[in-house]
């Protein structure tokens, strides 16, 4: 990931598909892992740990969207709806039936996957814009249903409490403990996404994305793989939603609206479509950005000619966010991943000219 890949000439397909392009890559990845597993949570303050924890959840959900949109090319503006499904499933299981958090997360993921299967059904007939609209409809229908069925939500615009995850006698309620809790899931999600991408299934999905008819002709069962993409993607989203509930300690529909769906879309576009590394970059960037903007406003306090700073902050966030989407699509449509690739290419032979 961060090593230089000088003098790599791949001669076999196996080498081309390997997780680690060069032997050194294995060690850099292990070093990074060790850093995040051992050193990181003790080096940074609570403030940055909160950011990191939110990033972990965002990574899980964005990776789900990466599989659906980045690999299979199926547009979904309903990611937050699947997250809501997972979050409410986990919350209800843990809060009302006292289930273990692992049960909650698994059940949340599975229920979201089933829901994704249903929402994915129109992908048999429609694609592109129409599919986007169908998932948009699913988003609104989910929001409305959760809001209006009191058994699920506990009342209109209410929130239900979720007990913090418990590991034996240990209750994970400090940011540091929750960091490790979320790190595990984020890592599993990343490794699984990487492996899905380079397996038979990943290639089938990419074939569907690039040319559906051609994929069908070479023997890819298009409908099956499309649905599979929906199922896996919403499983990711469901798990992310459940994690969100356990992390925050409560679940409310306010955090799973159409805005969040667009947020996740933005992550994978800003990060770079079809790349796991890009998805992670995007998740980090988009999650941290509002905090950075708040810091900026704080620093400029008194200089800005605005009376109401909190409203201005939310409006500035919208403006920066919207502007960023347009800017990235214009200037860097391949996203941060391609930016990273170019930086690496530059340093590949550095300090020699060629």
């Amino acid at each position, binding site marked *: 990931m961060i090593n230089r890949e000088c003098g790599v000439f791949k001669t076999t397909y196996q080498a081309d598909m390997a997780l680690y392009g060069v032997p050194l890559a294995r060690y850099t990845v292990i070093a990074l892992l060790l850093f995040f597993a051992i050193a990181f949570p003790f080096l940074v303050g609570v403030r940055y740990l909160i950011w990191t924890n939110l990033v972990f959840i965002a990574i899980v959900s964005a990776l789900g969207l990466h599989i659906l*949109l980045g690999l299979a*090319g199926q*547009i979904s503006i309903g990611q937050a709806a699947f997250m809501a499904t997972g979050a409410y499933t986990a919350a209800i299981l843990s809060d009302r039936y006292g289930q273990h958090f692992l049960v909650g997360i698994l059940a949340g993921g599975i229920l979201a996957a089933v829901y994704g299967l249903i929402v994915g*059904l*129109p992908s048999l*007939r*429609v694609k*592109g*814009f*129409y599919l*986007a*609209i*169908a998932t*948009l*409809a*699913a988003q*609104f*229908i989910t929001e*409305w249903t959760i*809001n*209006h069925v009191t058994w699920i939500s506990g009342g*209109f615009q209410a929130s239900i409490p979720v007990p913090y995850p418990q590991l034996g006698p240990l209750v994970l309620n400090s940011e540091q403990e929750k960091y490790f809790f979320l790190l595990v899931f984020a890592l599993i999600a990343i490794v699984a996404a990487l492996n899905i991408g380079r397996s038979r299934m990943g290639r089938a999905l990419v074939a569907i994305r690039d040319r559906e*008819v051609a994929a069908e002709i070479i023997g890819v069962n298009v409908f099956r793989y499309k649905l599979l993409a929906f199922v896996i993607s919403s499983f990711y989203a469901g798990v992310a939603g459940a994690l969100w509930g356990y992390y925050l300690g409560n679940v409310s529909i306010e955090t799973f609206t159409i805005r969040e769906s*667009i947020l996740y*879309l*933005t992550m994978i*576009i800003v990060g770079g*479509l079809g790349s796991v590394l890009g998805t992670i970059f995007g998740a980090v960037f988009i999650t941290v950005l509002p905090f950075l903007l708040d810091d900026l406003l704080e620093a400029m306090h008194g200089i800005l000619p605005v009376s109401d700073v909190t*409203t*201005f902050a*939310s*409006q*500035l*966030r*919208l*403006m*920066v*966010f*919207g*502007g*960023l*989407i*347009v800017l990235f*699509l*214009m200037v860097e*449509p391949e996203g941060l991943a391609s930016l990273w690739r170019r930086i690496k290419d530059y340093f590949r032979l550095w300090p020699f000219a060629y």
Partner: protein
Amino acid sequence: MDWDFLVSLIVRGLLLGSVYGLVALGFVLVYKATSALNFAQGEWVMLAGFLAVAFYTIYGFPLWAAIVITLVIMIALGFAVERAILRPMIGRPVLGMIMATLGMGIFLRGYVPVQWGVQTRSLDLGVPDEPYDIAGVSIPPIQVVGAIVALAMFILFGYLFQRTRMGLALRAVADDQQAAMAMGVRVTTVFAIAWAMSGIAAVAGGLVWGDMLGVDQYLSLLGLKVFPVIILGGIESILGALVGGLIVGMTENLAAGYFDPYVGGGLKDFVPFVLMLFVLMVRPSGLFGREHIERV
């Protein structure tokens, strides 16, 4: 059975629906000529409403001047958006277009309150307030005005598309860009015209809705109603936008009128999307849309 109640629901729904159609018209006009999807249509309506309020109430122009200035700005915005955002998107996957216009919409939702504040401002078009009483159904005059404006717009744009040379160029570009180019149609000009038309439709929508509900940032939520309307009517049909708008308006009004008390409200935002999902499953091209046949 309470017939008066039913009739009043239907009439009000139809009037409301004609204005939905007006907003959807802006979307259809752009799609028809340029096959671009404007997910920011609702935000355009909001912007138009705010511009009208700003020039009329805040800067003190006479109403007609405020409307003219709004029209000019929105047409200019249409040109600018086509040039700056949509042209680089030509030939890219549909997702790029969706995200670019979504991004533009999000930006506007942030920018407009910064410029003109978050409070709701009333836009008084000089339409009387006391409702008409027609056969036992009370109807606010502004809804009638809205329906008339919507109808006028539909007739105007229908005429432009079907009977004029410019409309011919628009239809030619919609049909086959390369062939149109080969015949000497300036495709870029046609694109710009289509976006400007969409701006005009947004002004009409913004004025009518602004008078009805006041102008604030929630006006942009109107954009969400566009999707059920165009899916129902067919995404490239002007007539479809009108009929779709009428059906959506009527359906949601009936559903809200009869079933809202049982489910705790909010059916108006729910039923159109259920209707839309149904249409997507059964007939994705809508009532008046063209069937998409994929050739290898």
